[in-house]
C-alpha cells in the first residue's frame, strides 16, 4: 500500500514537473522574473548572404565575444544583452526597413549597425528619424562622421575611418618610396565609390609626403570581377616602380593569385591596404614575399597578451578566422555595454549618447590598450593602424610598423578644414 502511494506521488510529481518544464520552455521564465531581468535587445542588421556573407558571419562572431563576457559576468544590473540580427543582403533599402522592423516589431532598444557604407548612410537617417541610440561598426567612409550634415547627436561610429588609413598608409608608403627611390606609382582599385575615394585619399597623402611621386597608370576593375588578367597586363606594360591597390576580400585573393602567375610581385613593390586580414592571408595558397600589406585584423598586431586572449575567445565560438569587421563589431558592442553600465541599463538615446561621447575603454585593439570615441565628431580613434611586409609562412605578415596618431590628428584636421567640415 505504502509502495503504491509512493508511486502515485512520484507519477503526479513527474506530471507536474513535466508540465512546468513545458510551460517554462514555451513562455520563458515566469513573468515576475521577466520584468526585472528583461534582456536589453540590440538590433543588428548586417550582410549574411551573397558574396560578402563572411562580413556578417565574422561580425556576429565578434559580437559574441563581448556579449558572452558581459552576460557571463551577470549582465547589466542583472539584465542580459541579447543580439537580434537580420540579413540586409547588402541592400540599403532593406537595411533601413529591417532597422525599423527591429525596433517596432522585435522591440530592440538600441542599434548596432554592421553594414557597408551604402546601407550605413540609410540606417543613419533611420536612427535619426526614430531616435534610437546607434553605433555604426563597419562603414569606413570618412564623411559619415566628419561631415556635420551627417551627424546625429545619438549616433556614433566604432570603426576604422578612411582618412586615418590614408594618412597612416601615406606616411608609411612615402618612407618606403624614399628609401627605395620609387617615383612612378600605378593603382588598381575596384570601380565604385570606396575604391575611387580610397585610392584618391591614399595618393593625395603619398604625394604630400613625397612630392616627386607620379601616378602613371590607373586601372579600375569592376567590384567582384572574376578575372583581372587585363588589369594585370596593363600594369606590367606600364612598368611602374610600385603599385597601390585597395582591392579587398575574395577579389584581392583572386588578384594576387592571378598576378603571381605573371610574376608581377617580383617586378615592382606593391602596397595592398586590405591584405592584412587573416581569412585573406590564409586563403592565398602561396603568398608572394615582400608585399606591403595594411593590417586589418591580425592576432599579432598589436602583439599583446590581451589580443591573443581575444583571438582565442573568438576562435572558440567561430569556425571562420576573425576579420577587421570582427574587432570593429566587438568594439561597437563594448562601447555600448560601457554606456549601458553608466546609465544603469537605461536605453534613452540622449543618456547613452552622453555616456559615449568622449568615452575611453580598455581594448586589445587600441595602440596603448585603450580606444576612444571622440566627442567632437563621434568617431573612433587610437585604434591600431599598421603596415607590415608579407612572409611566406604563418603569421604571413612581419616587420609591423604602427602609424603615429599625432601625425594622423594633424593631417585629419587639415583635411577637415579643406573640406569645410570645421
Amino acid at each position, binding site marked *: 500500500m505504502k509502495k503504491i502511494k509512493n508511486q502515485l506521488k512520484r507519477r503526479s510529481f513527474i506530471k507536474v514537473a513535466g508540465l512546468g518544464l513545458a510551460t517554462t520552455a514555451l513562455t520563458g521564465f515566469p513573468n515576475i522574473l521577466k520584468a526585472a531581468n528583461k534582456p536589453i535587445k540590440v538590433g543588428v542588421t548586417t550582410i549574411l*548572404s*551573397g*558574396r*560578402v*556573407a*563572411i562580413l556578417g*558571419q565574422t561580425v556576429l562572431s565578434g559580437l559574441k565575444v563581448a556579449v558572452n563576457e558581459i552576460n557571463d559576468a551577470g549582465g547589466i544590473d542583472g539584465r542580459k544583452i541579447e543580439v537580434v540580427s537580420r540579413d540586409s543582403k547588402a541592400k540599403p533599402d532593406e537595411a533601413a526597413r529591417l532597422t525599423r522592423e527591429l525596433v517596432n516589431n522585435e522591440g530592440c532598444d538600441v542599434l548596432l549597425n554592421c553594414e557597408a557604407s551604402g546601407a550605413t548612410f540609410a540606417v543613419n537617417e533611420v536612427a535619426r528619424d526614430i531616435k534610437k541610440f546607434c553605433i555604426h561598426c563597419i562603414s569606413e567612409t570618412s564623411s559619415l562622421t566628419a561631415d556635420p550634415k551627417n551627424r546625429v547627436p545619438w549616433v556614433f561610429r566604432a570603426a576604422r575611418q578612411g582618412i586615418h588609413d590614408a594618412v597612416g598608409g601615406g606616411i608609411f608608403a612615402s618612407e618606403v618610396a624614399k628609401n627605395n627611390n620609387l617615383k612612378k606609382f600605378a593603382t588598381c582599385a575596384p570601380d565604385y565609390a570606396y575604391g575611387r575615394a580610397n585610392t584618391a585619399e591614399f595618393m593625395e597623402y603619398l604625394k604630400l609626403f613625397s612630392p616627386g611621386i607620379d601616378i602613371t597608370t*590607373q*586601372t*579600375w576593375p*569592376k567590384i*567582384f*570581377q*572574376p*578575372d583581372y*588578367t*587585363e*588589369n*594585370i*597586363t*596593363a600594369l*606590367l*606594360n606600364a612598368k611602374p616602380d610600385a603599385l597601390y591597390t585597395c582591392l579587398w*576580400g*575574395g*577579389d584581392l*585573393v*583572386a588578384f594576387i*593569385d*592571378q598576378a*603571381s*602567375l*605573371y*610574376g608581377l610581385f617580383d617586378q615592382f613593390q606593391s602596397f595592398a591596404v586590405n591584405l592584412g586580414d587573416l*581569412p*585573406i592571408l590564409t*586563403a*592565398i*595558397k*602561396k603568398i608572394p614575399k615582400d608585399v606591403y600589406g595594411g593590417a586589418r585584423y591580425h592576432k599579432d598586431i598589436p602583439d599583446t597578451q590581451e589580443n591573443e586572449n581575444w583571438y582565442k575567445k573568438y576562435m572558440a565560438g567561430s*569556425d*571562420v*578566422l576573425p576579420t577587421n569587421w570582427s574587432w570593429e563589431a566587438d568594439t561597437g558592442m563594448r562601447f555600448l555595454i560601457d554606456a549601458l553600465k553608466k546609465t544603469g541599463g537605461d536605453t534613452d538615446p540622449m543618456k547613452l549618447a552622453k555616456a559615449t561621447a568622449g568615452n575611453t575603454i580598455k581594448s586589445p585593439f587600441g595602440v596603448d590598450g585603450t580606444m576612444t570615441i571622440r566627442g567632437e565628431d563621434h568617431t573612433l580613434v587610437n585604434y591600431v593602424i599598421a603596415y607590415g611586409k608579407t612572409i611566406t609562412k604563418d603569421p604571413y605578415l612581419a616587420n609591423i610598423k604602427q602609424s603615429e596618431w599625432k601625425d594622423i590628428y594633424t593631417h585629419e584636421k587639415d583635411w577637415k578644414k579643406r573640406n569645410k567640415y570645421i
Partner: protein
Amino acid sequence: MFDIDALMNCFGMASCAVNQLTSGLIIGMLLFLVASGLTLIFGVLNVINFAHGTFYMIGAYFAFSAYLLTESYLLSAFVGALGAGIFGIFFERVLISKVYNQDILMQLLVCYAFILITDDLVKLIWGTDYIAMGIPDEFRLAPFRIFGGYVPPLYAFLILLSLVIGIAIIFLISKTRFGSIVRAAAENAPMVSALGIRVPLYFALLFGLGCALAGVAGALAAPVRSLTPGMGFGILIESFIVTVIGGMGSIPGALVAAIILGLTRSIGSVGFPLFVDGLMFLIMALVLIFKPTGLFVKGSSK
C-alpha cells in the same frame, strides 16, 4: 576618357601587344566555355537558363573539393564538369522541364529560386570564407616570354584546352548521332518521339551538357579565381552579352563574340579604362540594332 596615345604606344611595343592580346584570349576562351553552354541550351530547348552562372559556381566548388582529395588539376576539372552536369540534369528534370511551355517570367522565377537555394547550400557546405584552390604545382612556372610579353603557362594551357573543348562540342552537335537527334528534336519534337526516340532523355542530357560546360569553366578557372557563394552572377551577365552578340543558339558565334569581348576588355584596359563595360554594352546594342539575330544566326530570330 580615351587615351589614344597609350593605345598606340602599346601596340607599337611588341611586349605590350603580346600581353594584351593573350590576356584578351584567355578571358575570351573561359567566357566562351560558359556562354557556349548557355547558347547550346537556348538553341535546342529554347530556354534561357538564368541559373547558368550557378553551374559555373558548382563546377568550381566541386573541383575545389576534388582537388583537396586528389591533388590532380585535370581530374578535379573533370569532377567539376561532371558535378555541374549531373546537377544540371537534375535541375532540368525536376524543375525546368515543368515550365518549358510556360511564360518566360515563370522560367525566370524558377531559375532565381534555384540560384538562391544553391548559393545557400554552398554557404552551408563550404562556408562563407574566400576559398582559393591555389595554382597547381605543375603550373607554378615562370611565365613564357614572347617578344618581351608575358604568357603564363597555365593560361596558354587553358586557351588550348578551351579551344579543344569548343571544337569537340561543335563536332558533337553537328556530326554525331546525338547531335542529329537533339537538332531534329529542336525542330520537331513530336516527330522525333514518333520515331521511338525518348526526346525528354535527350533534352535532359543536352541540358546537362550545357551545364557541364559552365562547370568545366568554373573548375578550370578555380586555381586563379577566388571561390565565394554567389560567384556565378558576374559571369552570367557577360555570358548573356556573348550570346546576344554571337547569336542565340550559335556556338561558333559564341566563340567569336567571347573573343571580341575578351579583346575589348584587354585593349580597353589600356586605351579606355573607364569605358570598358560601356563599350561591351555598346557593341551589344549595335548588334541588336543592326543584326538583331546576332552575328552568326541567319534569318529572323526565334
